[in-house]
């Protein structure tokens, strides 16, 4: 669905964001895009929808060169940036002006989402808070029924019940034809939704793996004391003891702790790399 082939990108000569990056994303998954501040998550999303052009290499989205921003591509994707623009008008007018560009837009569906998010469809956009505006945009984006959804920090600014509603809605729309990419720092909000992780670190992709495969290769545990176990990749202390990340030699089943994994990947990139490139 999305193919990045040897992509390099730099905002200026000094600040290189990516070098020789390769990545293929398939439909049917909710991808979680993780990385520290400035790792290039937003740039990567922008590249997928043609707002950033690789300085070398190519980015193909839905079979088209993303940089061309062809209408045939743009109407099949929806990009929700972290900071977004909403004109000062009523929700109804906003929809009537923007929805006709998306052939699969479903108005009833949009109203269902507004209802779920408890937003009055007659409100003026300016009178809404940041979080409410974001919910309108999320609802609109999902109701466009595009094949590709690119969400940059969607849960930022949402209150606690809205995060739940967001997860319910995402669970209801994920299907085998859709590719959903969510960049986030709030892993706890989305841990149960994401089924494929892409971790960006120092200009390249450190991990690009299905959650099932990750838990096959890694085991997440909380222990009282950390021994000199060879299998331990990374550990951090918590209230309950030590959270450890270790090689899953005995095919143990454990729940993926994305925060722990993310920290582990940042601290010991070589070990992780070694583990995931073996087969």
């Amino acid at each position, binding site marked *: 669905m999305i193919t990045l082939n040897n992509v390099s990108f730099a905002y200026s000569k000094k600040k290189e964001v990516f070098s020789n990056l390769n990545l293929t994303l398939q439909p049917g998954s909710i991808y979680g895009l993780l990385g520290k501040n400035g790792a290039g998550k937003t740039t990567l999303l*922008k590249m997928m*929808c*043609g*707002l*950033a*052009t690789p300085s070398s290499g190519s980015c193909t989205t839905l079979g088209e060169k993303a*940089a*061309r*921003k*062809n*209408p*045939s591509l*743009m*109407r099949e*994707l929806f*990009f929700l*940036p972290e*900071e*977004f*623009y909403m*004109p000062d*008008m009523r929700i109804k*007018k906003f929809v009537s*002006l*923007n929805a*006709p*560009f*998306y052939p699969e837009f479903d108005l009833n569906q949009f109203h269902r989402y507004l209802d779920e998010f408890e937003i009055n469809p007659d409100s003026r956009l300016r009178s809404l808070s940041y979080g409410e505006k974001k919910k309108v945009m999320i609802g609109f984006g999902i109701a466009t029924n595009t094949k590709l959804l690119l969400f940059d920090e969607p849960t930022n600014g949402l209150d606690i019940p809205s995060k739940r509603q967001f997860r319910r809605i995402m669970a209801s729309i994920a299907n085998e034809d859709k590719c959903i990419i969510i960049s986030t720092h709030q892993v706890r909000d989305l841990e149960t939704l994401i089924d494929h992780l892409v971790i960006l670190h120092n200009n390249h992709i450190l991990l690009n793996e299905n959650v099932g495969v990750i838990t096959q290769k890694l085991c997440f545990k909380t222990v009282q004391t950390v021994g000199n176990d060879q299998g331990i990749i990374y550990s951090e202390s918590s209230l309950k003891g030590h959270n450890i990340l270790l090689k899953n030699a005995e095919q143990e089943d454990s729940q993926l702790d994305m925060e722990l994994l993310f920290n582990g990947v940042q601290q010991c990139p070589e070990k992780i790399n070694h583990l995931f490139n073996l087969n």
Partner: protein
Amino acid sequence: MNNIFSAKRFALLVRKQWLENYLLLIGSFIVLVAFDFFVLYQNNDWDANRKPSYFHFNISAAYILSLGVCSVFILLTYFRIINTHTKQIAYYTQPTSTLEKLAAIFLFMVPVMLIAFGAALSISVPVMHSAYDSFYHTTTTLFAKDEAATMKDAILVFLTLQALILLGMHTFKRYAIVKTFIAIIILFFLFFYALPGVTFNWILPIEGFRNGSFDTISYMRNHEYGQMVYKGILYLPSYLVYVCWFALYFKMKEKQL
């Protein structure tokens, strides 16, 4: 699917931009009409002791000044569409082709602007004229100097400036307006001063070395050949408007955010 130009998408885009900006556009038109009234008021002598037989209408003043007002407002409208990063993201991720976006800008910038400008004059001149007549209880003749050539030039200059400003807004990332104005001043200097100067002093030094110094003005005045070259150079800026719109297309096509 047609990715170059679709009439349907273009219509949707124009509709959207109109409905998002119509208040500003209509407001601008009202200001324009008011401005024309003001120009007509200034053009005429309102001293009640005289018995004027003409109602003056200085076309070039009204034209040039109100074109300026027009340009400013329409540019403002367009600037409103793309003046922040978030607006640009919304604008460029919209499923319309570059040509459709460009055509929508062109529609508002050129035909709509010229029509509004003509409409403002055809409202203000008759109204002001009859007001003038009822003020003096006479019937005056409309006196308008025929300045078709000046008007044509004025329109061209404004369309060129407008296109340059648009291009500047798309080229410079920060302080776009300031940089654009500096660029326009530099261009002005290049076309009207440096280019003729360089041409006559260096490229065509026919008489330039005769006395060690060279008088461009007298050379142009006195030599048929010099006049031809000078006119040719002056024609260059009149093509700038096409170059600008062409360049704008590629700037928009390759826009990075």
